């Protein structure tokens, strides 16, 4: 790869190579305060399928140690999204050291609150707004559970805001560093925001899972305790590597649902959602 950078997010190191300079410059800028890995765990490659595609309607293919065949390329203007998807892919397909939960997470006083749900449930938005209120941001995509200790490890990559969440977070975090606005992506309009300094400074520090939330956005306020067996089932569905980890995954997840209560919350707007999370946490 012609242009290369490397960065560490939580306990995971990535080396990202690109056929173009611009995506690497953008990553180096937005991830400038992140540490560099000594030895990267995963490689991500952003490449052109054909040599002329570096210049002519340049389109970015996502490659790396782990790939999905036939993944559609993205226009060069969306290369930051391609890098994010490439890193997600390495984690989802290659991570073996931790039980991976598709969840966002925040921490205060050593207690981690994990929030998981379908796309659009408000995982990223809630985590970003809780960060604005002084919580330590642990991640908006993956929370890593260490099967040996049961502790939650952070994966605080850039927060990926989508569509109507963008103006909400822009208004509440006026001094945060934002990436370029990416329009017309497969997920709609997308804008990255850099986690605050405390989130980056503490990213190697695990926290004890204290509460599991299953938020749903756009419904009348409601709270329902989720019994451990149901939380277990929902979290197996929210984990990309539960089956791969075999008995270590089973032990990690049964331990997690035994130690942390789970609550399903419905919220009509972000202010109500934040109030509910802070009251329950």
């Amino acid at each position, binding site marked *: 790869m012609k242009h290369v950078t490397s960065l560490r997010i939580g306990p995971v190191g990535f080396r990202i190579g690109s056929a173009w300079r611009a995506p690497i410059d953008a990553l180096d800028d937005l991830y400038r305060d992140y540490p560099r890995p000594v030895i990267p765990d995963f490689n991500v490659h952003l490449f052109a399928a054909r040599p002329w595609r570096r210049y002519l309607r340049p389109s970015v293919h996502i490659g790396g140690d782990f790939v999905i065949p036939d993944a559609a390329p993205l226009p060069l203007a969306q290369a930051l999204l391609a890098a994010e998807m490439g890193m997600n892919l390495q984690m989802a397909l290659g991570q073996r050291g931790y039980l991976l939960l598709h969840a966002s997470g925040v921490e205060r006083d050593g207690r981690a609150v994990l929030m998981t749900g379908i796309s659009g449930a408000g995982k990223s938005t809630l985590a970003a707004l809780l960060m604005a209120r002084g919580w330590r941001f642990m991640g908006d995509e993956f929370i890593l559970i260490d099967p040996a200790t049961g502790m939650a490890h952070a994966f605080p990559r850039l927060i990926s805001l989508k569509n109507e969440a963008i103006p909400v977070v822009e208004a509440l975090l006026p001094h945060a560093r934002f990436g370029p606005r990416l329009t017309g992506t497969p997920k709609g309009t997308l804008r990255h925001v850099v986690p605050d300094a405390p989130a980056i400074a503490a990213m190697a520090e695990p926290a004890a899972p204290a509460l599991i939330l299953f938020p749903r956005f756009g419904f009348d306020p409601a709270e329902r305790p989720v*019994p*451990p*067996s149901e939380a*277990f*089932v929902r979290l*197996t569905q929210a984990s990309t590597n539960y*089956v791969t980890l*075999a*008995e270590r995954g*089973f*032990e990690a997840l*049964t331990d997690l*649902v*035994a130690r942390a209560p789970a609550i399903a919350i419905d919220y009509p707007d972000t202010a109500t959602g934040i109030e509910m999370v802070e009251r329950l946490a």
Partner: protein
Amino acid sequence: MARYRAASLATLRIVPTDALTLIYHRASGITHIVDAPVPEILEALAEPLSADALLAKLAAQYDLLDADALALAVRLDELAAAGLVERL
């Protein structure tokens, strides 16, 4: 008459939670989420038993509201298909 025996305890990791019980089956790598009376059946089948003898044993140990030999036979077939019970 066919007799049944639970899969060896060494191949099972059984974690009771609330109403349901989580079972990791090491031999297949499959996670099972089961309701009563499955944990009770597995416990009773530590020794090989016919379906009738199993029903009698369960009836002696628990207050069975609907002791039904056919329902138990269906359960045993399911458990045998899942590998949690062996048909001898």
